[in-house]
């Protein structure tokens, strides 16, 4: 019997590749265009229960209470002084130099770099102070301290400097680049009743 098309059966079957490749390239371009290189983002957790739920300060709780006051320079809005109050312990650090930002496309000069480095020292001082008070209290370095910190920041202060202060209070990195927690209970001073 003669079957129609029998001769063709032995030929190679050719798939139409062009549409598939078209689609595949479309997909590829889409995914490349939507791809975003993102740096890791992290969080500082702050718990601020409403005033009614908060226990009132007694003599006992007052002992484990660190107050951090941040004062901004009126013009540049960068941090000027840090004042800490812990029990009877009071210290004030003045930031002598303010950080300099490079103009777009420019590098910092050596003097400006030094200025930036000096300006970070104020946070290192705060960090050292917290290490001292926490070290005298608790013994477990992994869990953080029972001490509560309250930040009273100048409203005009650049948020950046507030974060550096929070960083200095919350912990540090040891020689092996591990994070050592210091104070975990950080909150802002209640400014609800103050005018902005």
């Amino acid at each position, binding site marked *: 019997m003669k079957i129609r098309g029998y001769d063709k059966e032995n030929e190679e079957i050719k798939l139409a*590749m062009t549409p*598939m*490749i078209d689609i*595949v*390239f479309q*997909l*590829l371009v889409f*995914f*490349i265009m*939507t*791809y*975003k290189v*993102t*740096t*890791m*983002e*992290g*969080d*500082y*957790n*702050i*718990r*601020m*229960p*409403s005033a009614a739920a908060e226990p009132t300060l007694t003599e006992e709780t007052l002992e484990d209470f660190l107050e951090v006051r*941040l004062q901004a320079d009126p013009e540049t*809005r960068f941090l000027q002084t840090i004042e800490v109050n812990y029990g009877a312990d009071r210290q004030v650090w003045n930031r002598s130099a303010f950080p300099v930002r490079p103009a777009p496309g420019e590098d910092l000069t050596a003097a400006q770099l030094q200025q930036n480095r000096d300006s970070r020292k104020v946070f290192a001082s705060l960090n050292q102070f917290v290490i001292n008070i926490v070290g005298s209290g608790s013994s477990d370095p992994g869990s953080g301290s029972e001490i509560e910190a309250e930040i009273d*920041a*100048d*409203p*005009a*202060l*650049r*948020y*950046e*400097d*507030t*974060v*550096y202060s*929070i*960083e200095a209070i*919350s*912990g*540090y*990195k040891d020689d092996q680049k591990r*994070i050592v927690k210091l104070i975990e209970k950080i909150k*802002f001073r209640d*400014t*609800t009743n103050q005018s*902005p």
Partner: protein
Amino acid sequence: MRFRRKRNEILEGDLTPMIDMTFQLIAFFMLVINFSEVELSEEINLPMSELARPPEEAPPFKITLNLKEDGSIKYYDQLIAGIDVIKPILVREIRQANSDGVATSDVVVIIRADMDARTGDVQRLMNKCKAEQLENFSLRVIERLR
């Protein structure tokens, strides 16, 4: 001659390696694509920090607020002119959270504030959230690499 005949045939290169490679690329980009980041505004210059780590577990319900330098708030694609008019959005999100079975006090407010924003603005924003019984805040920073 025999060669002449072959030259008249359609010359077709081997497409298999190219298609293999292209599929590999597509698979790669499909895996790294992250649609969950739509609420993160790219206009914000986050402050940098060495210590902050990404949260170990995702919060049951989160509200991400991007606070810009001038005190306006970016919420998804919506630009909110000031902190004082944020309330309707908070109320809407809290209602959404409650209908999902998440208590208001368990909702986490993620504040992505610009490094040059005023600290007072951040505090005012937190006060607005506190007025709606929100208690948990996360201050978002970007990891500083050394």
